[in-house]
């Protein structure tokens, strides 16, 4: 193979790529937070709700876990307009990723409801907490602490998954890498730089999440 690395043609585009990385992070955060909220609501329903609502949640989880994310976003982007719901590519990707993460975060947080000591709920109930108060003040902190590792894993997965947005011409990191590649044809240089940015991004996120866990939830997690 006779390939000479010429990074100089690509380095000028690094600020443009970093701009894409910001969008990547933004999509990951939005979809994680929305998915976390969906998951928390679903897990509450599975624990406290009536049978019909529980079945609906189970159907949702089964559907989103057993179909590819890409197909889900295609559906939102190409099929919903027939029903009059026209979404920008960014919105379609954000919604698809949120609904998908919501299914996984339901399963993760359900484990949190199950692992909570029954006695803490008895105490809360005996003191007159409502169900939403129990969830927010007793269960959520327990989930944050006990399930911090799988939750932060899910966040890292969300960061990676954002690359799917490139297919819908959303200019996050992978989308912009594709643009730079078409411009320069220095594929190895472009995608090696992008790989380094992804690694840096996830490492920074991991460290940040571990620190947040220590400060906020007293989680004794390894930093690296």
């Amino acid at each position, binding site marked *: 193979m006779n390939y000479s690395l010429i990074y100089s043609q690509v380095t000028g585009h690094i600020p443009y790529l970093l701009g894409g990385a910001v969008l990547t992070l933004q999509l990951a955060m939005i979809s994680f937070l929305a998915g976390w909220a969906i998951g928390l609501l679903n897990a509450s329903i599975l624990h406290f709700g009536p049978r019909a609502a529980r079945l609906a949640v189970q159907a949702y989880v089964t559907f989103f876990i057993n179909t590819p994310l890409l197909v889900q976003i295609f559906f939102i982007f190409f099929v919903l307009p027939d029903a009059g719901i026209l979404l920008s590519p960014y919105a379609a990707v954000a919604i698809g990723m949120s609904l998908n993460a919501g299914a996984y975060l339901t399963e993760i947080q359900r484990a949190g409801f199950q692992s909570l*000591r029954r*006695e*803490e709920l*008895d*105490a*809360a*109930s*005996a*003191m*007159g*907490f409502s169900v939403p*108060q129990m969830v927010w*003040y*007793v269960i959520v*902190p*327990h989930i944050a*602490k006990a399930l911090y590792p799988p939750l932060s894993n899910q966040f890292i997965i969300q960061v990676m998954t954002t690359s799917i947005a490139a297919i819908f011409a959303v200019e996050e990191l992978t989308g912009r890498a594709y643009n730079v590649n078409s411009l320069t044809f220095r594929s190895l240089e472009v995608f090696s730089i992008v790989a380094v940015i992804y690694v840096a991004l996830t490492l920074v996120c991991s460290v940040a999440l571990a620190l947040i866990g220590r400060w906020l*939830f*007293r989680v004794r997690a390894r930093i690296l």
Partner: protein
Amino acid sequence: MAFLSIQGLTVSYGGKADVLRDVSLDVERGEVIGLIGPSGSGKSTILRTLVGLLKPRAGTVAVDGAKVDYGSRGSLRAARDRFAIVFQQYNLFQNMTALRNVAIAPTLVKKRNRAEVEREARDLLARVGLAEKVDAYPDELSGGQQQRVAIARALALKPDILLLDEVTAALDPELVGEVLDTIRSLQRDGMTMLIVSHEMAFIREVASRVAFLDQGAVVETGPPAEMFDRPQSPRLKEFTSRILRH
């Protein structure tokens, strides 16, 4: 009418046999009632029913002449204004400091001013001898200390009647004394209490009356000395002869 009047209280778990059968009990203000009996006799069930964790199938409960309605979630709030319970396993919220454990229900459920509640919570923790532990989390406290936080937490609700459900049963023997001291001081302050306990010497000391339960029914009630020394019913005779032997 007595301060706390329980009439014909009957409780069953999901269609099964009654775990409480027609329990009636009158308690005067400031009285301490010891509930004793073999395991499964329904002692804890009475306390859990009074505080609204179990729904009675029949019977009435009245405090200070006002009937307590256990019918709906909303009306349960009234029951929880009257009673506060301390559990065998302390049941503290693991994610909260001692201070927050004590202060959370009055701020959240009763919507009281947070600064004022926290001042009271500090006083209560000082009263149970934990002034210096306000910022400790439950996993940093011994069992006896956790149980005293739990007592402070129950008192923060300003209940008319305090329910103590085997509060020393999960403690190491050398930690039992500090919790019993706390309960003694509450008794001296005139707190009305229902105490489920296996500490017979303690019941004998603090209780004004004792109720003996067997198979979900009150078999005999009376002052502790009489109950322990001159039991009338055959079941209580058998029970006291067994527990007083060791």
